[in-house]
């Protein structure tokens, strides 16, 4: 029988009593929280959870926040929490889950994602990084790109081609790659914002034991769907207060700088304010559906709306700021550990938001997903599904 809210409050109180946050090092508190099953309550007992309904996590989080307990800095380990963990949970062996989930959740080990390649972006299934079996290991060669956190990551979720002679979706296998392997080379990839938030990762004769495979050989595409579906929810599905996100700084600028106001900007800002509020409500409704165990198709659209809004609002904000909009805070090449879409100035927000409709599935691909999977419209004629990967045009 799964725990109810009262039971979770009792267990949270127990945790706090045994490990008073004020006197407990953060790492110890997080480890104790994981052991108590209060890390992610919907996960299984023994893996940081209590098999409780996901919605009840909010009960635990509220109690812990009120008690001043440390959190696991989710922005630093977003890929682990949002993408690797659900995939490990769905496809990992017991041993794999025990090895990886705890250090992932407490933040002791950062994860990154080795999926996209220069020649395989929207058409991710066409990826060309090769994994060849050699005894108990796989030997991996190839190039990945757009890898956030690769320079700080301990582990990576990786998809690679294990069979080039079958159609592209059938020849992919999913692995966990050790980022400390000497064959892994991480190079910063500078973006239009001036900083290198992402990396290119070159894999040269990287050896991965077969025990670090997730799912069956050749089943990597199906495993990757779990990762990708979670990624899109993670990117577009944050819970926000009213005026949270991109609209916040634009609204603040409007209030604080009467000299910038014009009739034209006023109507455009108000329209975007309404769009942002409605997007927030749609996200809230989606979360309520999920909590009731009725996931709706709106999830597919969340990231689409998030990208469009971020781009339009930041674009308006640059224009609104006028003289100041012609400036930029800093072009210095840096390698931030955290991704912060709304940090820094309006120019940064405008440029960074351009990535929102590309990363984690382009808006074009997501619109296809909505059209085909939600609306049931027929797919375009495909020439790539029944051809061996090695015979595809590239």
């Amino acid at each position, binding site marked *: 029988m799964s725990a109810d809210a009262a039971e979770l409050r009792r267990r949270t109180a127990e945790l706090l009593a045994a490990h008073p946050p004020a006197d407990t090092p953060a790492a110890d508190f997080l480890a104790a929280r994981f052991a108590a099953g209060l890390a992610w309550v919907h996960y299984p007992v023994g893996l940081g959870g209590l098999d409780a309904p996901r919605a009840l996590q909010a009960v635990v989080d509220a109690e812990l926040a009120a008690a001043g307990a440390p959190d696991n800095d989710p922005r630093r380990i977003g890929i682990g929490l949002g993408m690797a963990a659900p995939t490990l949970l769905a496809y990992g062996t017991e041993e794999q889950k025990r090895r990886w989930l705890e250090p992932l959740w407490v933040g002791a080990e950062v994860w990154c994602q080795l999926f996209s390649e220069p020649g395989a972006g929207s*058409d991710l299934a066409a990826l060309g990084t090769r994994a060849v079996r050699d005894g108990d290991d796989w030997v991996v060669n190839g190039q990945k790109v757009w890898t956030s956190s690769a320079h700080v990551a301990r582990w990576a979720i990786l998809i690679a081609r294990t069979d080039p002679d079958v159609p592209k979706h059938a020849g992919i296998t999913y692995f966990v790659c050790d980022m400390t392997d000497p064959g892994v080379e991480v190079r910063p*990839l*500078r973006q239009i914002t001036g900083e290198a938030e992402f990396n290119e990762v070159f894999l040269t004769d990287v050896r991965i034991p077969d025990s670090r495979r997730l799912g069956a050989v050749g089943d990597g595409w199906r495993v990757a769907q779990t990762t990708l579906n979670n990624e899109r929810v993670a990117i577009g599905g944050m819970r926000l207060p009213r005026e949270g996100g991109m609209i916040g700084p634009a609204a603040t600028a409007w209030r604080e700088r009467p000299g910038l106001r*014009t009739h034209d*900007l006023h109507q455009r800002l108000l329209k975007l304010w309404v769009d942002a509020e409605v997007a927030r409500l749609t996200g809230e409704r989606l979360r309520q559906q999920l909590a009731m165990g009725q996931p709706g198709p709106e999830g597919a659209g969340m990231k689409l709306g998030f990208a469009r809004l971020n781009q339009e609002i930041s674009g308006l904000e640059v224009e609104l700021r*006028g*003289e100041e909009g012609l400036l930029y805070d800093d072009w210095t090449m840096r390698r931030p550990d955290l991704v912060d879409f709304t940090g820094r100035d309006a120019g940064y927000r405008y440029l960074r938001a351009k990535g929102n409709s*590309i990363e984690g599935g382009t808006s*074009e691909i997501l619109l296809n997903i909505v059209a085909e999977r939600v609306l049931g419209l027929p797919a375009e004629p*495909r020439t790539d599904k029944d051809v061996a990967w090695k015979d595809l045009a590239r």
Partner: protein
Amino acid sequence: MSAQPDLLYSEEEEALRAAVRDLLTDRCDPAGVIARTESDAPHDLGVWKALADGMGLAGLLVPEADGGQGATHREAAVVLEELGRSVAPVPYLTSAVVATEALLECGDRELLGRLATGRAVGALAVALHLAPGAAFRTVRVEDGLLHGELTGIADAACADVLLVPGDDGGLYAVEAADATVTGQVSLDLTRPLATVTLDRAPGRRVGDAAAAVPRALRAGAGLLASEQLGVAEWSLTETVRYLKERKQFNRPVGGFQALKHRLAQLWLETVNLRAAARNAAAALASGDDTAVAVAVAQAYAAPAAVRAAEEALQLHAGIGMTWEHPVHLRLKRAKADSIAYGTAGAHRAELADLVDLPAP
């Protein structure tokens, strides 16, 4: 209204375009422009010299008697289309158009000659975001010396002469050596802004700012549309080329109808943008219907060029987000241009009066 303006390009204009494009193709490659943006010398004075001195293009708007070419805004617009395509970091719009136009109003033949021959670069010390009719900042004039600070001055970093509005209504020529010019970190690194600080700087009164500044900004706004056309054209052409070549799903991605339609739509907007930009150039040349033509051109061009550059980035996708790829230079230029010499909103507001569609 008089006869319809000629919205086409003459043979001479096409020849001029070809010559400028050849030069820029040779001397203004994307990797070089990107590298230069972060160097100590963001302006490419070599290319500027070739354009101004070698080809005589700095003096297009200046009468031959004053050392110029005696051409018109139509030819200058063609040069700006090409400069927009390549986002060349040269002070053409700011010196050969805006500062020159101010001096034409003032009738200062000595300075006009210096600018027209490319011996000097001029910059009007009025913030880049201001629309032609907007109030502009002035500096204090005391005993013929100038005191004050002006921000957002485009291309001031490479100017030899600054044209500074004084609080007595005069427009003053100040040698850059007598001013302190400090670069500002700019969104568009190919047209950097600077702060101009004057501390007892000697200035020579060349005319009245109240007449010269609006005329200069109007010419800037009108011809900026041609630069925006160049940015939009590059964005469209380069994206079409890439989408024919880039293969995903076993086919060129340009073959997907959803993407084809977006490029076709961009083409339509570029066609419109060209007509509006040519009309503004023709109106500036003839003096007929200038205010409406310039406001229409800017109101249309600013969002159209931004959209073209934004679409170019999105359709290039991942590679378009990289510093190495030249698309971001166009995005930053298009976005900065959408504010320069007044936003589309400011120009629409001006139109409201001009065409009698008053605000509520």
